[in-house]
Each structure stands twice: as structure tokens, then as C-alpha cells.
């Protein structure tokens, strides 16, 4: 027996050692001194849209597959690939009638990343694009990509094939937690203002963010019920987030990458003023926040209209408690909402969107019924490429919420 105890005790340090999985972060590689873009002029949004399309990969297909999608996302260009589900985030500029793209690539489900550079030479489409001519198969982007801060290891050549899919429906690619989760080691923390500003680069045209309430009734954007090292850094903040005032939270902790925990007001201001996102899904984590959410929804919908922004703010109702609180509010039927529950609840809440979990299947009959009543259907939270394809094939969704909007974007636009 004593031997057994010794063995068990000797295993404890081993277990402790092996249990330390680390919490490494991925640094986004950047070009030194601004790279080639430092001496370029800007490209207009109208011209940038012309570059969008499906391109064949003439060199680099071992890493990125045979075809890729290039999409202008408002501030940057993104490339979405089918192999390895990589995405590129590229800034653009004009130099000597050529168009230069510089930025980084990243595998969505892996931490591999590196610099990338592409050039649409003046004689291979650059001049024509600048004159706002429609691209054709003579348009060739040439460049290279590498691991980490090396941009020249591997050749990358992309040739224009055709425009991207223009669907009849206004399909929504919704990014989870403002753009992505901490565990995917993104450059910004989940549910941070920074994350909301880069969500479009990942392929999203809408985001889902989580709303909680502090003990002094400030609606904030935070996912978990508790403060924990999963989401925040700060040695003195633990336990339920609703036990803290907003001032305490600002003093005691930061999000994983050092950002402040944003308020709902700050989030909506950022979305309106610093993004082109068209939908924001406010996932109600604390039903007590609903009265304030409704007020802010009304205020910021009006601000968006005044700013000329097309933005839909949906109050997400995930459970019976949230629905009950929502339906207690005067004029709740006029507040745009999204309901994750069953048919009758969606109707009774006058929700504009039904949002079932994808794990229930495509539910074609139920979806048709909802659409027949003028409702849209968003499925959550779909991450697996093979599952995403099924939902797109079935045509069941008006939108998909994903931790990997770049995968949804590829699978949707490549069609």
C-alpha cells in the first residue's frame, strides 16, 4: 500500500506539469516601416469593389487550394481560401498605376500565420482597374507569402475567373462574440471594440455580442457570468461580473489583450461609426439589462439612420427568462428582436428572426413556415466547414453565426 501511495504522490508533479497547456497568443505579423504601402496613394471604395471576385490559384494552391474569394470589406481586402480555410487581411494602395496589397494571412482554425504581398501590375489589370473597368481573366495578382515576418518564401499567383456569388437574399455572415473567440488567438479580445472593427476582415457583415449588467446597471459587453482568466487579466477581479460596478471593472481588469470591457453604448457607437456592419445581435446574457437595451436600441437605430448607415440592431432572446422580461416591456412588439426558442415564442415576441441551434438540423419545414410568416432564420453557432456546406446547400438559412466567418464567407461566395 505504501508503494502505491508513493507512486500516486509521485504522479502529482507530472500531472501538474502536463496540465499546463499554456495560453499562447498569436502575433499578427507586420511589414517594417509600413512596407511598400508607405509610399502609395489610396484606392476608392468603388474601384476596390471591382477587384472582388473568384480567382484561381496558379501558384500557392498547395496551401490555399485551387480557387479563392477576394472580397473588399470596407477598409481592407480579404482573401478566403477553401484549403486550410485561410484568410488574408490586406491593405491596399496605388503605386505607378499598379495596385499593391500588403498584409497577413492566417489559417482560421490554426495559429499559422505570416506576411503576404500581392501586386496587380499596371499591365496585368492595374491600369484598367484604376479606370474602373470590369476585370477579366487577364487580371493577375502576383506576389508571395511566408511564415511569420517573412513575406517572400513562397510564390502566390491569383488569376481572376468570375464575380462572386450575388444571392437574391441578403445573406448574413455573423461573427460570434464580436468577431471571434479568445481561444482562436486573434489579435483582439472577444467582445472588444477592436474585435468589432476587424470582424469584416474575417468575412462578417454582422456580429453577435453578449450583454450583461454591472451592479450599477451599466450594460456591458461580456460573455461569461464570471470574471476569469479565460476572458480577463487582472489579479483582483474574480467571481460574478454582476457583483462589480463598472468603475470597479475599469479599475480592476482588462480583457485578454489588454482592452477595457466595453459598454453597450461604446459598442454601438463603434459599430455605427467605425464599421460597415449591417446587423448586430445583442445576446442577452442578463435579462435585467433588457429595459436599458431597448432604450439604447431605439437611440442607436436613430443615430444609424442619421449617419446614413443601414444597421439592424436585434435583441437576442436566448431563453424563457429573457423572453418573459422582454414581453414585460411596454411596446416590446416594436423592438426588433431575435428569438432562439420555439415557434410560438417567436410569434408572441414578434421577433423578426428565429435563431435555432444548428445542432437540431436544417429543419426545412419549420424554416419554410417561419419564412412564410415573414421571419428570417439565422442558425448558430456553425463552425465545421462540412456542416456549413450542408446548411448552405439546403438553403435553410438567411444567416449563419460562426466563430469562423471566413469559412462561411468562402463557402457562401464561392458558389
Amino acid at each position, binding site marked *: *500500500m505504501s*508503494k*502505491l501511495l508513493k*507512486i*500516486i504522490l509521485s*504522479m502529482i508533479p*507530472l*500531472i501538474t506539469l*502536463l*496540465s499546463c*497547456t499554456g495560453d499562447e497568443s498569436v502575433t499578427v505579423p507586420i511589414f517594417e516601416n509600413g512596407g511598400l504601402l508607405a509610399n502609395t496613394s489610396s484606392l476608392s471604395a468603388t474601384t476596390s469593389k471591382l477587384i472582388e471576385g473568384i480567382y484561381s490559384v496558379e501558384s500557392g494552391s498547395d496551401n490555399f487550394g485551387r480557387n479563392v474569394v477576394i472580397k473588399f470589406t470596407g477598409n481592407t481586402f480579404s482573401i478566403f481560401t477553401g484549403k486550410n480555410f485561410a484568410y488574408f487581411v490586406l491593405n491596399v494602395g496605388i503605386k505607378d498605376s499598379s495596385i499593391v496589397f500588403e498584409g497577413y494571412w492566417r*489559417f482560421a*482554425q*490554426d*495559429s499559422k500565420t505570416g506576411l503576404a504581398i500581392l501586386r496587380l501590375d499596371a499591365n496585368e489589370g492595374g491600369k484598367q482597374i484604376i479606370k474602373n473597368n470590369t476585370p477579366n481573366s487577364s487580371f493577375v495578382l502576383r506576389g508571395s507569402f511566408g511564415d511569420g515576418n517573412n513575406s517572400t518564401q513562397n510564390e502566390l499567383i491569383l488569376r481572376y475567373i468570375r464575380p462572386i456569388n450575388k444571392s437574391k437574399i441578403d445573406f448574413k455572415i455573423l461573427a460570434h462574440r464580436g468577431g471571434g*473567440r479568445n*481561444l482562436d488567438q486573434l489579435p483582439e479580445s472577444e467582445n472588444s471594440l477592436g474585435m468589432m472593427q476587424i470582424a469584416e476582415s474575417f468575412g462578417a457583415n454582422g456580429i453577435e455580442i453578449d450583454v450583461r449588467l454591472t451592479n450599477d446597471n451599466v450594460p456591458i459587453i461580456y*460573455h*461569461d*457570468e464570471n470574471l*476569469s482568466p*479565460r476572458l480577463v487579466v487582472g489579479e483582483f477581479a474574480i467571481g460574478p461580473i454582476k457583483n462589480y460596478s463598472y468603475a470597479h471593472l475599469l479599475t480592476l481588469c482588462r480583457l485578454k489583450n489588454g482592452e477595457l470591457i466595453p459598454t453597450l453604448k461604446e459598442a454601438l457607437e463603434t459599430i455605427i461609426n467605425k464599421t460597415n456592419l449591417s446587423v448586430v445581435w445583442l445576446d442577452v446574457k442578463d435579462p435585467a439589462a433588457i429595459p436599458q437595451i431597448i432604450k439604447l436600441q431605439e437611440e442607436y437605430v436613430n443615430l444609424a439612420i442619421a449617419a446614413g448607415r443601414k444597421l439592424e440592431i436585434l435583441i437576442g432572446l436566448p431563453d424563457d427568462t429573457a423572453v418573459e422580461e422582454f414581453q414585460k416591456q411596454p411596446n416590446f412588439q416594436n423592438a426588433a428582436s431575435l428569438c432562439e426558442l420555439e415557434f410560438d415564442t417567436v410569434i408572441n415576441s414578434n421577433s423578426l428572426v428565429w435563431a435555432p*441551434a*444548428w*445542432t*437540431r*438540423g*436544417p*429543419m*426545412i419545414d419549420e424554416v419554410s413556415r417561419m419564412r412564410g410568416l415573414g421571419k428570417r432564420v439565422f442558425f448558430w453557432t456553425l*463552425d*465545421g*466547414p*462540412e*456542416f456549413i456546406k*450542408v446548411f448552405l446547400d*439546403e438553403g435553410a438559412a438567411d444567416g449563419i453565426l460562426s466563430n*469562423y466567418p471566413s469559412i462561411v464567407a468562402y463557402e457562401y461566395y464561392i458558389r
Partner: protein
Amino acid sequence: MKKLPAILISFSIAALFLALSFLPSVITAQQDSLKGFVVFPKPINAGQFHSSIGLSLTVVPRLIVEEGVLQLPMLDARARLGITDEFYLSGRANIVYVTNQISLGFGWSYSYKNLSLSIADHFGYWFGFADFQGFDAKSMGLANYPTITLGLSLNNLNVSLSGEALITLSQHTYFGTASVGRFSPEYVGYAVTLAVEEELWKNNYFIFGARFQYSLPMYQTWLAFSTSYRWALFPEFFIGYEL
């Protein structure tokens, strides 16, 4: 599959495995009362049978489940049957309804003084059901586990150290009326297991151990539908009573 048949299937398999575990013990009881060789890689005689029943607890990494359930307790049954003096059949069943695995395989073992060695290969069939709120899903798959085990016998204490390669072969998942499947053999990680078998009181043998799986997500976490391509550590602790 409806809930009741799914439960029945899981528990029928567990019951069958238990029954099979007891039966040869009764048959061979008069031949050999030695225990302590369910995991320990010492050669056993043809027809000799060793089995155990117990519990295991797998700690699921946050990388897979974030703030969700982090511990996965399972019924854990093991058995080993001698075919010849060197070759044996062995199996293990882990049952918890939402995810279950039965692995069966054969091995060769060799002993020199108090040291033993075995080389084995197991095929695992895993399956799971999720038919509670928000889910209408089930999944199943095949995996392969080539294993090498070293054993050191210290009086009545048998210590085993195993290394396994983890290879997934196929997976088929149903969600609602849709399904996806793939057959793509892939090396997804490895596992190291340290186990001790000891007689704690008269002829009552127990197995204590820890298995450290370092891999991509496998059957234990199919319900998380993780798409992570990052390897993670899945520590598993188990205790068993040898029948």
C-alpha cells in the same frame, strides 16, 4: 434515434460487457486465482481471463469547451483474454451515454524476470447521442490505437507504462434530417498511460491510473463540435476493481 432506444443500446452494451467480464472469471476461477494483469503486460495463459470494472474521469481542455462542462465521468470496463501463452485479446469500454467507446484488439506479450512488454493494436468504435434541448444529433466513428506497454512487477504491485498512437479512421454525424460523414485516416495524437495494479486486501485487486492524451479533439468531445486543429491535453484518471 429516439431517446429510449439510444439509452437501451448504451446500457445493453455496458451490461453485455459486464456479463462477458464475469463469465470467464467463473470459468477460470478454479484454474488460476492470480490477479493484477488486466493492464500489466505479462503474458497470460491461453484461456485465462482478467477483467475489471470501474470509473474514469476525463478532464476536457478549455480549448474545446471554454466555460462548459470540464469533466467527463465514464463507466470504465476492461478485459484481457489469453489466446496462446503469448497472444491475447483485450478490450475496453467507456460508457456515459452522450459519448461511448468500445475498443477491441489483440496483442503480443513477453516477460523477462520482473519486466514485461506487450505490443497491441486496438480498434475503437465510438458513438454518442444528444437528444436534449437544442440538440438532435448523434455521431459515431472508428479509431485505431497501436499500443506498446512496459511493465515492472514489484512484489504484489504491477506498474505499467503505455504509449499509444491515436489514429482516427472515420466519423459520421447526424443532425436533424441531415448528416455528414468522412473516412479519412489521420494521426491525431498520442497518449501515455501510467497504471498500477495492486492487491489492497485479500485477493481484492484494484487498478489506479492516469492517461494523458495529447491530441486533436476525439470522441470524448464530439458534442462540442470543435473544429480546433490545435493539439490539447486530455488528462484521464481511472480506478477499477478487478473481477
